[in-house]
């Protein structure tokens, strides 16, 4: 191997600004998609345990359909497949307002929503059935029992698997480069293209991802400790990257 390292390409000229932009876009797309995924996950995860068959069935259909198809296909579907079916004015508006970014948010949010749904369903199943019965017997309606008792407890139980899912979402946001979202991997490639310095550019991108993952994992393990329910700690140990 005959290669002269030149790490200065990472801060000379525009490349530093590109990397920073990339990190910001990655964080932006991931956090918006995360919010969507958690909302969809809580809703469909709760519905999958609901006492009404039709609702359970609809939520299961959503989860099974979206989870079993590659994220890349969803990216293409939302970016290339959906817009031609929309009204013309809306298409124009989307093209002026970063259609690829919003398609990326939709693809990531809906795909990971299906995966969060499974995590939350498992959390709800881990709660003893008597909690639900006790809540209903105090006079709460079923939606109230879910909103006030079941979902809050489930959310405290699922911090470790939710951490894994969050890290997966962050890493999967790199797939958005295929539809032209200028996130971190996209910028890493751009630096490689402009400077022909593959090793330095990819090393920088890789280290930034590792750093982000470690930071999130550290934050979530603190959150896990403060969220743990006394007496139920054993259910969710081992936060792993």
């Amino acid at each position: 191997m005959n290669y002269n390292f030149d790490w200065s390409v990472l801060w000379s000229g525009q490349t530093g600004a590109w990397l920073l932009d990339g990190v910001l876009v990655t964080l932006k797309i991931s956090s918006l998609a995360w919010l969507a995924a958690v909302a969809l996950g809580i809703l469909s995860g709760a519905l999958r345990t609901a006492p009404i068959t039709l609702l359970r069935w609809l939520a299961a259909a959503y989860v099974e359909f979206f989870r079993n198809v590659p994220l890349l296909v969803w990216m293409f579907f939302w970016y290339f497949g959906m817009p031609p079916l929309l009204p013309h004015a809306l298409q124009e508006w989307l093209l002026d307002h970063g259609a690829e970014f919003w398609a990326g948010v939709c693809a990531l949010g809906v795909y990971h929503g299906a995966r969060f749904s499974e995590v939350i369903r498992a959390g709800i199943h881990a709660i003893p059935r008597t909690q639900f019965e006790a809540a209903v017997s105090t006079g709460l309606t079923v939606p109230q029992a879910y909103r006030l008792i079941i979902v809050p407890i489930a959310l405290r139980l699922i911090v470790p698997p939710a951490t894994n899912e969050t890290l997966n979402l962050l890493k999967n946001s790199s797939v958005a480069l295929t539809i032209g979202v200028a996130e971190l991997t996209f910028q890493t490639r751009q630096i490689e293209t402009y400077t022909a310095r593959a090793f330095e550019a990819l090393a920088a991108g890789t280290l930034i991802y590792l750093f982000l993952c470690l930071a999130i994992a550290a934050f979530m393990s603190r959150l896990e400790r403060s969220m743990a329910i006394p007496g139920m700690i054993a259910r969710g140990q081992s936060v792993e990257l």
Partner: protein
Amino acid sequence: MDFGVITDNFSFLMLQGFIGLGPFAGGTLRLALPAIVLGFLLGTCIGLARLAHSPWLSVPAKVYVEFFRGVPLVMVIFWFWFIVPVMLGRSLPEYAVALTAFVMFEAAYLAEIVRAGIQSVPRGQVEAATATGLARAPMMRYVILPQALRNMIPALVTQFIVLLKDTSLASIIGYVDLTKAAQIVNNREIRPFELYLFIAVVYWICSYTMSRYVRRWENAAGQSAR
């Protein structure tokens, strides 16, 4: 909407894109099947190394696993795509690059499955094997691994589902898998909705069938354990 585009290009999409028979070196299955087998072999070595007593084995194995699990797959594919030509002085075909990247990446996840599988074998088995006079290596080979493998099967199939979906990412370096085949057809026919919906259904059928199988296996195992 016009699904005629699917019937017209069906053999290209399925034979070339999905299976890998045709003029291009491609195919989703031709990448996914060798990748899971080789990834499992490498993953078993790494998983065993993680459980070794010697830190000279267990620490590098841990670093390997944590590194690959903290980096996006797209990044790993680009690593091999851009670095290998620099190191070898010549470029490799997409198939070789994609296969190497997937084997290395999946091995990290499979190593964790192997480790969990081995740790799921009751401690008494190790003690019984030691008591009969087996050394450490034959004990692994004849007592622990066969039982661990049985416990691992659902997790392995689940990982294969993940891998099958992830092979779509090989299309970003130009490997002609099912996703790339749909892109090629779409460039000619401009029918994105129909084409991407079709390949979504193909992926869905494969993943869903396998995940049903996993659930049946787990339910059966759960009942026999009771």
